[in-house]
């Protein structure tokens, strides 16, 4: 025990096993100092409301990233069938198409796109608000073919494109479909 250690009885006081009155007089001063130490303990409640949407957005984003991988075996079988059925068909020419995405969301603070073309990452393709009318747009150049996507409003709400057809993603949500 060093000179800075509390007396064992004072430790019992800090543990709540005895009261200040139970200490012998010569330890009262040390006991009072020890209680002042405990009085400085911060028991303020802390609220972290953002944790809920951070967790749920992480789970949602990851699920959408995994989805193409889950479907990949089925797509591979379908592709093999197409090749077998049309062995002499010429290979399609890769083409790029520029397309503009538009969403009217006057109350949104930020809007982004998540889809098969960006691995469902809602962070990488933001839309830009045009004027004060609440119209959000993004112009992308994408390979010809079919793409699935959704708008992500304020980083939380996944919204299908009201102006495009949609398909069930197999997990109870709707993905918009764009065919170029």
């Amino acid at each position: 025990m060093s000179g800075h250690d509390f007396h064992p009885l004072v430790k019992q006081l800090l543990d709540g096993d005895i009261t200040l009155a139970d200490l012998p007089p010569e330890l009262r001063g040390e006991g009072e100092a020890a209680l002042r130490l405990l009085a400085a303990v911060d028991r303020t409640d802390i609220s972290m409301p953002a944790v809920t949407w951070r967790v749920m957005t992480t789970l949602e984003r990851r699920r959408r990233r995994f989805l193409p991988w889950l479907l990949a075996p089925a797509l591979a079988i379908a592709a093999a069938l197409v090749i077998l059925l049309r062995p002499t068909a010429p290979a399609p020419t890769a083409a790029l198409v520029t397309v503009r995405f538009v969403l009217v969301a006057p109350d949104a603070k930020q809007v982004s796109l998540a889809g098969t073309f960006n691995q469902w990452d809602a962070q990488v393709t933001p839309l830009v608000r045009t004027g004060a009318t609440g119209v959000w747009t993004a112009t992308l150049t994408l390979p010809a073919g079919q793409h699935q996507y959704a708008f992500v409003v304020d980083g939380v709400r996944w919204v299908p494109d009201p102006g495009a057809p949609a398909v069930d993603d197999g997990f109870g949500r709707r993905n918009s479909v764009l065919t170029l």
Partner: protein
Amino acid sequence: MRSGPQAADGEIVRAVLAGDRERYARLVERYRDRYARYAARMLGSADAAEDALQDAFVRAYDQLAQCKDPDNFIGWFFLILRNRCFAERRRNRTSASLDAANDVAAEDRTDGGAESAERRRALQLALMELTPDQREVFVLKHVEGLSYAEIAERLSTSVPSLKMRMHRAYDKLREQLRDHT
């Protein structure tokens, strides 16, 4: 299946495992604030605590099928959060805790004057000098208000072992705070 706000943890866990993933948000909402303070005091930073809580809830979701007693989801979740907090401290052992103490001080304006805030700030800094084991038992007893028996049950350890840790923590805090007591 009942879906009211008071659904038991076990019921929600089973629903999530059955495919109703959205209901996991209920568990997060139910416990995020209760453990925010523990994480903040363990890590010394509200930002680090928020990251730790997020990671722990995501990890718990990933491993939900391994939760052997869904009705005690929170006891199981606490151990995941605890591991996350300990790992964080190992990674950032040398990082200064001044910001942490300032975080605490900023929350302290509701009661007492500058002297009280300074004491709290000093105690928070001193807490960060304890070992994680010592800090944890101090936080659980004196911040969260748990008894030694409750802490022992939660951490699967004995009361004498906890008291030994705590008593070392008292001495270390006294040494750190000798100008403040």
